[in-house]
């Protein structure tokens, strides 16, 4: 390009920018670039001018200021003395927790519904059809509100558990209480604590780390055992008996560690106004979780159906010819191939779930939108800063999720050699 323009330099005329095909594309690109940049610069400049006209500055200093409000669901240490920045982190973790739970259940629901929708049984396939059409075609906000209303109105208040003849009673040998504030289940407690490691932002319990390490170690050892068994089978034709070894490897170390730490369950009991002790899953969380799962599950079901239909019928017939039963045909032949078609749209559904968690404000779920974009925004009045932070955080989270899913997609896609 550079050499040709130098050679032609003597005879260059301005009109050639449009009429000469060598320059035309460059001209068009420059003009579009100019307009785009002018638009962007105008937007930024306009914002700065108008902010200064209102007498507002642009800074993120408020993140260090004491927040002064309480958040009900906290995954990390937080009190009303913590900073707005920490409230943001608490909200972010609540967002991610909800997104993670919803993604897992939506996938399970979606795969089951998608496979069943192709069932030869008319009733089952029509039931799944009904499920997909019903949930896919109603806004998710309505599902969230409906499920929350049902959870609140149809379940008893903690007060109903009180007295000699309570109108409500706890389930499963008095261990689980379902109330209109949430579900109380037994929670883990340890008589011996090994303390906690303080990582500045969060402090992690050593008990938790130890148990995680033991579980991961056991699973790894079990994989090694099975691999060894397969190697023996390859070599000798006989597969050694592994089931009791597997059980031993998987559970014995865990039970030993739990016993050493003095593990016991903390049962919820009615004290004062509420149940105390145990673990508490708020109705706002349950409603969001269920609504996002069944709503997105309907979309995933359609993706799964599309993926399965994309596999030629010859594959099924070949599997049947080999003597595989329908169950194993689906699990070993069809689904692994269908994954190639299912994964890319599944990534979008995961991103949708993550972004839809921001509807939590409708039922008072304290996600990032409710803490940073709600209370913090309101108490500090920093609309622009809070909204920009929210956008950047959602963008980062979404990019990380789609990046991770793309790595997985690369591992299952058709290998062309």
């Amino acid at each position, binding site marked *: 390009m550079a050499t040709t323009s130098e050679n032609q330099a003597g005879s260059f005329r301005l009109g050639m920018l449009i009429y000469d095909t060598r320059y035309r594309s460059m001209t068009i690109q420059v003009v579009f670039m100019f307009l785009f940049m002018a638009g962007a610069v105008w937007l930024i400049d306009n914002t700065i001018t108008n902010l200064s006209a209102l007498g507002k500055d642009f800074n993120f200093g408020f993140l260090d200021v004491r927040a002064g409000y309480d958040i009900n669901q906290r995954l990390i240490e937080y009190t009303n003395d913590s900073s707005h920045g920490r409230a943001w982190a608490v909200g972010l973790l609540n967002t991610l927790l909800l997104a993670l739970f919803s993604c897992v259940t939506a996938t399970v629901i979606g795969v089951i519904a998608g496979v069943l929708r192709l069932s030869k049984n008319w009733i089952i396939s029509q039931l799944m059809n009904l499920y997909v059409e019903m949930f896919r075609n109603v806004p998710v906000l309505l599902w969230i509100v409906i499920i929350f209303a049902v959870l609140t109105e149809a379940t008893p*208040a903690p007060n109903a558990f009180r007295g000699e003849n309570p109108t409500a009673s706890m389930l499963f040998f008095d261990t689980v209480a379902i109330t209109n504030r949430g579900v109380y289940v037994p929670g883990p407690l340890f008589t011996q604590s090994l303390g906690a490691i303080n990582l500045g932002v969060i402090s992690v319990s050593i008990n938790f780390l130890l148990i995680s390490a033991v579980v991961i170690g056991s699973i790894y050892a079990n994989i090694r055992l099975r691999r060894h068994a397969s190697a023996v089978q390859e070599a000798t034709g006989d597969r050694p008996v592994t089931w009791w070894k597997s059980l031993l490897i998987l559970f014995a170390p865990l039970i030993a560690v739990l016993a050493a730490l003095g593990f016991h369950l903390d049962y919820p009991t009615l004290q004062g106004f509420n149940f105390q002790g145990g673990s508490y899953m708020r109705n706002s969380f349950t409603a969001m979780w269920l609504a996002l799962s069944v709503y997105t599950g309907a979309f995933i079901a359609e993706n799964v159906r599309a993926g399965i239909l994309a596999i030629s019928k010859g594959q099924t017939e070949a599997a049947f010819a080999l003597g595989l039963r329908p169950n194993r045909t689906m699990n070993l032949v069809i689904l692994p191939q269908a994954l190639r078609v299912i994964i890319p749209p599944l990534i979008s559904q995961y991103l949708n779930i993550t972004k839809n968690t921001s509807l939590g404000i409708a039922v008072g779920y304290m996600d990032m939108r409710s803490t940073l974009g709600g209370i913090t925004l309101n108490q500090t009045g920093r609309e622009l800063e809070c909204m920009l932070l929210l956008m950047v955080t959602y963008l980062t989270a979404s990019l990380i999720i789609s990046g991770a899913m793309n790595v997985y997609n690369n591992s299952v896609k058709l290998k062309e050699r």
Partner: protein
Amino acid sequence: MKATLFVGTLAAAAAVAGMASAASHGASVLDQIKARGELNCGVSTGVNGFSAPDSAGEWQGFDVAVCRAVAAAVLGDPKKVKFVTTTGQTRFTALASGEIDMLARNTTWTFSRDVDLKFTFAGVNYYDGQGFMVNKALGVSSAKELDGATVCIQTGTTTELNLADYFKSNNMSYEPVPIETNAEAQQQYLAGACDVYTTDASGLAATRATFADPENHIVLPEIISKEPLGPLVAHGDDQWADIVRWTMNALVAAEEMGVTSANIEELSKGTNNPEMNRLLGTEGDLGAMFGLDAAWAKRAIMAGGNYGEIFATNIGESTPIGLARGLNSQWTQGGLMYAPPFR
């Protein structure tokens, strides 16, 4: 070559945009309202007695009356108001962006809202404090017994911060249930999903009045904060702030001087009280000082009556809400309502 082209384009674009942004700001708020022929007034999404539509769809209430008085003063017609509903979360953004001209949504006057959020409070139309409402069946008689309770709060309000402070200073714990609007809070509270509902005591009284069984719910005696509620406008137009402030003052002064919607026509023919004459526009021309005509205050008072009348019709003791005047009496009767002189 491509890199130079890119940089050149960028620079040229920046230069053009820089010139474009030199455009200046528009007319004053008063001129905008007159041109529009309508006052945009931000109110709550529905707090009975303060701002809620009646069965005919007309907005009624204590805060609504302030909007109507201002509309009457500025536009000559108390009906020329467009009511924009705002939640605790959206109200300040709506006001700062100019979507609404003024906000009359039982909003607490605080330092940071006045100074940091760049608003001007046009006075206080109701001196309030935060209280707690509980079901009588709980057997609670004092807020000090609320340790461990589940509390419904409207999110994005000062009540959220007061609540945190109160429980902290009394070494008590609680479970906050954040809620967006008063109606949702009411539904949650009645379903028993929270033990306590907390907001301004006036709001509690208003909410309780709409219950099917108001006698089964009590407002606890503790008032844990000072909540001076009043209308506010955005910074940047002092003339407009003055209009709203002095419309409020006119309503209060009218009660003090004994001007009511019943006798205002009679009194505006001229009296031997010079200040009343100045207020009603028969002497001097106070209205011209901020761009209105002489009869602005007369129209504002005629819109819904003086401060006392507005209080009595919307939230007073003869209404289902049944609030006593208390701190909101005239200063001559031991209250805090005190209008500066019209001079």
